[in-house]
């Protein structure tokens, strides 16, 4: 009897153990639906899907619920999801969005053993953007971006100007002389330069002319400074001279379309335009050149990231997906496939073409002052940028002077700091 009881107990324990193991196994393989909020801003969908496919093959119990939102609606949708207590598990975010939602992001520090080792894998400017006030690393950088100038090489050639050579040392004054010759030599070309209708792209000029948005310790708005006023005056001057099309800043026409149509000789835009022009421009030769020098040479750093949120339902799986996007193999694959600048230090990307164009953007990025990244990660600056854009337009229209516009911005902006 005693023996029978012992055997029964052993059997019972074994059965329990087997079932317990089974339960654990079943728990690990429990089906998970990962909500992913996404936007596309170029031809990168295919490359992203390849990364997601790799992740899903390694994690067959995961299903992705992708919500792809137009970028113009993206920030609003994401903010409402977060404030409604229903954030997505994973979201793609830009530097602009990052500055707004930074406090809602789940720190990567909580999900890896050696956060410093993780940070060291990425470009310093990207790490700076993705670090919150507490020093926590809150988003995996997927790509670095930079602002720079792309020019219609064919148009410069027609004017007998070797743009690759002159752009190595040119200043904005020299650019003005040169660009007038280019327009004169190309009957169908109407303008010299188009600048994207965003304060971020405008800040490329602002920094070059020695201006800034915030004070030195980033604690208050300080748009009222000589560099900013000079930039605004120069920007109005080139509009009034007909060197820059009014239809972009006054009529929100797309500068990339104007460039592709051969109507402007140059475009100050983001590095992602290399991908767009590589696909779309067939009628003329184009290239990236160093931006003319104002007081200094400068670009504006930016980037895109992938992050999860505090309170997200499936954080473990979310962080695995994010890690997949940020690992060396996929980061290189993404940068190569989409003509973007990789966010990792160790990425070795050989682009199918246009490698020199990327080098030019990177050269501009290297001489860019560090405070530019600090300004663009400032949450309060992001709240005033639309008003700044409106005030720039008011200057262009002649409704206010540059001096009045910077005072208006400082007056309104002070309320946010």
């Amino acid at each position, binding site marked *: 009897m005693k023996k029978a009881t012992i055997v029964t107990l052993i059997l019972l324990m074994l059965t329990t153990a087997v079932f317990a193991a089974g339960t654990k196994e079943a728990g690990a393989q429990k089906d998970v639906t990962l909500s992913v909020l996404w936007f596309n801003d170029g031809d990168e969908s295919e490359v992203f899907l390849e990364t997601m496919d790799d992740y899903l093959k390694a994690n067959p119990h995961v299903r992705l619920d992708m919500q792809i939102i137009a970028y113009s609606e993206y920030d609003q949708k994401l903010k409402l999801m977060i404030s409604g207590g229903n954030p997505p598990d994973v979201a793609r975010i830009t530097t602009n969005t990052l500055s707004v939602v930074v406090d809602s992001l789940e720190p990567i520090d909580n999900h890896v053993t050696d956060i410093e080792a993780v940070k060291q894998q990425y470009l310093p400017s990207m790490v700076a953007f993705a670090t919150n006030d507490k020093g926590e690393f809150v988003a995996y950088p997927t790509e670095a971006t930079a602002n720079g100038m792309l020019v219609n090489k064919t148009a410069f050639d027609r004017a007998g100007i070797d743009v690759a050579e002159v752009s190595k040392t040119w200043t904005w004054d020299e650019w003005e002389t040169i660009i007038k010759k280019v327009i004169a030599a190309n009957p169908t070309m109407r303008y010299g330069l188009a600048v994207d209708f965003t304060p971020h792209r405008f800040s490329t000029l602002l920094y070059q002319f020695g201006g800034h948005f915030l004070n030195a310790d980033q604690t208050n708005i300080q748009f009222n400074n000589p560099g900013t006023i000079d930039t605004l005056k120069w920007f109005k001057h080139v509009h009034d001279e007909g060197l820059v099309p009014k*239809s972009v800043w006054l*009529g929100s026409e*797309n500068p990339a379309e104007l460039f592709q149509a051969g109507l402007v000789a140059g475009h100050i835009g983001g590095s992602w335009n290399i991908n767009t022009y590589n696909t779309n421009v067939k009628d003329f030769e184009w290239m990236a050149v160093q931006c003319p020098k104002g007081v200094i040479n400068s670009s504006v750093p930016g980037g895109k990231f992938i992050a999860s949120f505090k309170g997200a339902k499936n954080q473990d799986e979310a962080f695995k997906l994010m890690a997949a996007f940020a690992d060396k193999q996929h980061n290189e694959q993404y940068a190569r496939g989409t003509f973007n600048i990789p966010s990792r230090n160790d990425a070795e990307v050989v682009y199918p073409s246009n490698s020199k164009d990327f080098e030019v953007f990177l050269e501009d990025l290297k001489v860019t002052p560090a405070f530019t990244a600090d300004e663009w990660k400032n949450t309060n600056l992001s709240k005033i940028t639309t008003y700044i854009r409106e005030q720039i337009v008011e200057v262009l229209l002649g409704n206010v002077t540059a001096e009045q516009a910077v005072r208006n911005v400082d007056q309104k902006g002070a309320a946010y700091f």
Partner: protein
Amino acid sequence: MKRGTKGNFHQTLAPMLFLLPNMLIFGLFIIVPAVQGLRMSFTEWGVFTQPRFVGLANFRELAGDAVFWKTFTNTLTYSFFTVLLIMIYSLALAMMMHKNTIKGEQVFRSIFYIPSLLSMISVGIAWRFILGDEMGIINYLIRLMGGNGVRWLTDGKLAMMSIIAVSVWAQSGYYMVIFIAGLQAIPNELYEAATIDGASNHEIFRSITLPLLKSTLLVVLVLSTIASFKAYELITVMTKGGPGYATKLIVQQVYQVAFLEDRMGYASAMSMVLMLIISLFTIIQFKITGKEQGHE
């Protein structure tokens, strides 16, 4: 007694039961958000922060906000001309097409009605391609003929005129259908009698059509006024409210303040002012039309 109870049910309770689903939806999606909006207008509140009661501070700030008053003036200008032109244009279309006297009338009705089926975003994109300064079709043709092009969307006054014209084009088909229904409800005998009495077309329109169309006119007036005060997509796509503030309406400013500047409380105060204006206009319109109908 029993009959009386049954009568009460048919006369009062039954209609209420039929109205209940709509009243519930109206209450949940209109009244509750409106009350919430009013509550928020007395707070300082960002999307990620807790609301803080600030009393009338938002409304005081609004009184001295030059951009708000610019958008207010723009909204009145846009609404006045859009509503006026919609009334004239859609009534004219309806007058031409309600008698089945024009060959291919059904086709014309469809052609005029189709724009009102399109989303305003599509309409805006299409017209930006037509009116764009550099890439627009009209300016392309003007330049082909040796001209310089017209600054349809980059000159403040022309931009406002352009968005009014496109709004009228896009919405008139819808109101034309309402007017056609109103015109077809007028007894034909009245026109026949007037014609026999020797009345001119102008007299017939003034003495028969217009008075009998008054209730339809009121419906179109109220609907188009409310729609014009809420215009958002078309203007955002065509001009982004520019150049400068030239075509920016209150609704655009509310969006900017709420979602870009993260000032939900202040944006709610703006929305409350907008709601008051719309209510005021609607009451005035009802009063005027009601008074005139009462005199008859």
